[in-house]
């Protein structure tokens, strides 16, 4: 059973990470929060209409509610009476509240309880089988989410160029006739159906973690859109699977643990990403400081080259006083200069090598 839960979790994560990438790049991450809340409203209302939890109409209704949130927020914002952030923050709690009230008032009629709305019931998902006649084809939610994932993938492949352009240069996309507004709503529909699909397994809030955290992790690691999509799928799937394992190991709620693992992966990327991570950034800054100091030293030496004061100015022991560096720092700088072949040291005297001289000259000319 744990294998099937891992399978479902992996599929959910993969399907979520595709729209997540574009939400992150378009700076609309919080729309996923808004949409995933209002999806509940859509599910409840459409349930009252069709009275069947397995009907695909539920999906349609819920997706419509997601789009409704976006449209309502935009309408509110367009009145210019409130700012954009407040307009998002007003619509989805209202819809979510109506959903929760309906569920708790009619809890007897609906097989949904208000806690499951938040936590999802992935542990129970394997019990809900997809049957073809008498043949058991596996858990139903794996199929549902698989289809959602395929839809996302198809949307991505069909409109990759358009999405890319509209994301990075909406103005140009509009000029070329790509209709960024249409793509925007396409993306919002994609987010909505993904949120509905994932709702059963991970509930309405943690889907945000599965959409945004893997995409943010990938964003720390790459500058290429294609790579980012791939990395985000990979990191989403791995964190989902690790999350399920951890949940079984610590006996905690599965969806919550998956979200935590997604967060941990993101924290790792944040710290140790090769180019943009905090740690490597720290090293880069320190490195740059040293390289710059090296150039300063080079200019200093070149200035006094062949002058009467050369001997005094080029003395290692005097450098730190003249350039106001600490002893340790000047020793490091000199070592770096020698290692890179810019400097020579005879006794206590520093001299530029031909390479060093040329480098310094070209630097000075550049300015």
């Amino acid at each position, binding site marked *: 059973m744990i294998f099937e839960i891992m399978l479902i979790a992996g599929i959910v994560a993969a399907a979520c990470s595709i729209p997540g990438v574009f939400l992150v790049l378009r700076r609309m991450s919080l729309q996923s929060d808004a949409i995933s809340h209002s999806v509940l409203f859509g599910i409840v209302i459409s349930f009252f209409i069709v009275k069947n939890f397995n009907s695909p109409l539920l999906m349609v209704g819920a997706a419509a509610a997601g789009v409704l949130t976006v449209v309502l927020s935009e309408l509110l914002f367009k009145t210019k009476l409130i700012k954009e952030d407040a307009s998002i923050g007003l619509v989805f709690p209202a819809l979510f509240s109506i959903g929760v009230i309906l569920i708790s008032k009619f809890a007897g009629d609906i097989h949904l309880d208000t806690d499951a709305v938040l936590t999802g019931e992935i542990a129970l998902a394997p019990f809900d089988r997809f049957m073809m006649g008498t043949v058991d084809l596996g858990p139903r939610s794996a199929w549902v989410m698989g289809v959602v994932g395929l839809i996302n993938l198809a949307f991505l492949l069909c409109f990759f160029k358009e999405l890319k352009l509209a994301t990075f240069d909406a103005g140009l996309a509009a000029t070329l006739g790509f209709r960024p507004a249409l793509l925007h709503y396409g993306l919002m529909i994609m987010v909505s159906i993904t949120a509905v699909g994932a709702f059963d397994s991970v509930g309405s*809030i943690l889907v945000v973690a599965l959409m945004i955290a893997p995409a943010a992790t990938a964003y720390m690691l790459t500058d290429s859109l294609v790579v980012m999509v791939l990395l985000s799928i990979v990191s989403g799937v791995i964190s989902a699977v690790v999350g399920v394992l951890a949940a079984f190991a610590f006996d905690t709620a599965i969806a919550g643990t998956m979200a935590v693992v997604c967060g941990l992966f993101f924290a790792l990327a944040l710290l140790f990403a090769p180019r943009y991570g905090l740690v490597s950034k720290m090293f880069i800054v320190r490195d740059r400081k040293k390289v710059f100091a090296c150039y300063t030293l080079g200019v200093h030496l070149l200035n006094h080259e062949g002058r009467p004061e050369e001997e005094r100015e080029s003395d290692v022991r005097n450098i730190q006083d003249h350039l106001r560096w600490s002893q340790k720092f000047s020793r490091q700088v000199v070592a770096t200069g020698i290692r890179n072949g810019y400097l020579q040291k005879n006794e206590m005297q520093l001299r530029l090598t031909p390479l060093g001289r040329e480098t310094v000259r070209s630097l000075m000319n550049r300015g």
Partner: protein
Amino acid sequence: MIDFDYTLTTVVLGGALVGLLSGVFGVYAVLRKQSLLGDTISHSALPGIALVFLVLQVKHPLALILGAMVSGWLGTMIISSVSNRTRIKLDTIMAVVLAVFFGLGLALLSLIQKLPTANQAGLTKFLYGNASTMLRQDVYVMAGFSAVALIVVFLLWKEFKLATFDVDFARSLGFPIRALDMILLSLIVVAITIGLQMVGVVLMSAMLVAPAAAARQWTNRMGVMTLISAFFGMLASVSGALLSSTIEKLPTGPSTVCIITLVFVFSILFAPTRGLLWQGLKRRYNHGEIALARILEELYWLAQNHDSLAHYHELRLLQAINHQRIDTYIANLSRQKLVELSGAGGIRLTAAGLERAESAIEETNGSAAKS
């Protein structure tokens, strides 16, 4: 008739405090465009609550609120430092912190539910809020925190106002902006955590945003806005709490949010000068005024062509030239004695009408020259 027994008074007092505090600090969240930060803070408070209970095994409101504050505050700090120091954008890190902290909270809650002590019941009230489980003890703790927060905002009113509307000016006057921001943010965290038990983690952000956004429509002054917002907040949260404790199976948070949303919708529709209804009426009035001026101008030019004001022009001519609702406008003009009708389909300017037409033309030319 509602019987004000012990429970109900507690609920009303608690609701009033929650509404007051979220109303007051919501003003800052809305004006500083940090509405969605409230959502993040309230969600990230959950693991703090769960952890305090898990480690200390206590349910004293002071301990739980402190736990909530620490973890909400931690979430806020992560958001600001990551968005300042890395390539990750503000919205992304907000969404990540919100969902991951909340996930951690749910995971910890699930651990708590497996504890052998039966004491754990009632922590889930922090998810959707439950007014009817409130005790006097809770109200005292909330009152203590609220008093401190309100005193601070009273003392630093001017500074907060300046830092909200004109950061650069405030900085140039030497106000410690970073410190002020931190204090204000911490107070917002306090306001949110105070309300968690009542409104719940999931919907607390609406309590922060909606009263202030509604109050904004009624005034342009920050002091007045704060008072109105506090009033709206109290109104919604007291009535939400009362409704949910009198009607069966009605969770407090969602009903409070529904009420405050209604208040907000009412405000954007009917608030004077800013409200949509008002704007619509104003626009219609302006359209009318412009149309009247245009008709007078046309009559003026017609009169110019005839050397004499006394000449009646064909009404049909005006009707042919332009204007929907021309008959209403002409009736209006003749009521104001700016035009005279001959009865035989003729129309002419009166002396007053001539004056008005000249000033209208002057105004048009003046603004044309200016632009």
